[in-house]
């Protein structure tokens, strides 16, 4: 593959710390802070908050951490889109399938069924449209 490029690129610079590393370190710091907030909810005074608020906050932080690691550490942000598509496809199948299973077992019984459907279908639908859109753009097609 592009081994020759890498050789020239690699020998070009021998400094130990560069800008790129700082991006990663900053990301790690953000992740650490988020983890701190997450753990903070465990403590008594915060833990008295209603369950739905805790679940919402924690889920939100979890999703952000997930995407930070995927986008920056796994550099999906600036890598070929096909990698993101593979990962997203896995998530988009796993999400509704396992939640439908959970609902069938009576998970969150007090939810309105319409709310359940929205909850199930909106994330995969958004990603589905995005996938379809980028597919139209022609995944890796020669002309």
């Amino acid at each position, binding site marked *: *593959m592009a*081994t*020759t490029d*890498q*050789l020239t*690129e*690699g*020998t070009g*610079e*021998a*400094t*130990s710390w*560069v800008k*790129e*590393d700082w991006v*990663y*370190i900053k*990301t*790690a710091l953000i*992740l*650490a802070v988020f*983890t701190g907030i*997450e*753990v903070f*909810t*465990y403590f008594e005074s915060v*833990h008295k908050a209603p*369950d739905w608020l*805790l*679940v919402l906050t*924690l*889920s939100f*932080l*979890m999703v952000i*951490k*997930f995407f930070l*690691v*995927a986008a920056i*550490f*796994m550099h999906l942000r600036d*890598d*070929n889109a*096909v*990698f993101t598509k*593979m*990962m997203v*496809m*896995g*998530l988009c*199948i*796993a*999400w509704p*399938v*396992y939640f439908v*299973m*959970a609902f069938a077992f009576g*998970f969150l019984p007090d939810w309105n069924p319409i709310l359940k459907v929205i909850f199930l279908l909106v994330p995969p639908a958004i990603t589905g449209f995005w996938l379809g859109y980028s597919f139209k753009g022609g*995944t*890796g097609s*020669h002309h």
Partner: protein
Amino acid sequence: MTETATAQTTHDHSEDHVSTLGVSNDKLGMWVFLGSDCLLFGGLISTYMLYKDRIGPDDLGPEEMFDIPFTSVSSFVLLMSSLTVVLAITALRRNDIRRSRIWLLTTAILGAVFVGGQVYEFTVFYREGLGYTTNLFGTSFFTLTGFHGVHVSVGIIMLMSMYIQSMRGRLTVAQEEKLEIIGLYWHFVDVVWIVIFTIVYLFPQ
């Protein structure tokens, strides 16, 4: 031509002639695998969520068993190992073999600390009376976290084999992609733990 040939001798497999998308087969293969692994952990997490409250009247449940401060520390350790593996890759990309080797070893050690923490946690649970066969909570908890632990251990083995390669002077810039692929696996394991830590440990029981 000869230049390309030289480069390819350092590249250990030149089976990928054509590349429609301009990406390497190995890396794409790893991503495809990770996409499928989402379904594996999804199934295990769902099983745990279904069973976590199904315990006998005298059994200890998740609320009583979990030691959140301890698990937080080991989660933090795993999170930071994601940073160190990235630093190992960027160092290797800059041809800074020595630093890359140090970060590699650090990552493996952090991973080992995490697995060690998990083993310790399991032992404590066992002593407190929660065995693998005690109840549905125990069964599903140990299976889920055990599967994750096995994933981390496989990652440690891969990192250590890269480290040994570097000790024998075989870790060069040409190996950058291999390390990157191992890194992807490692980050994925970390991401899975982010999900498990939140859903299993932190969600109000």
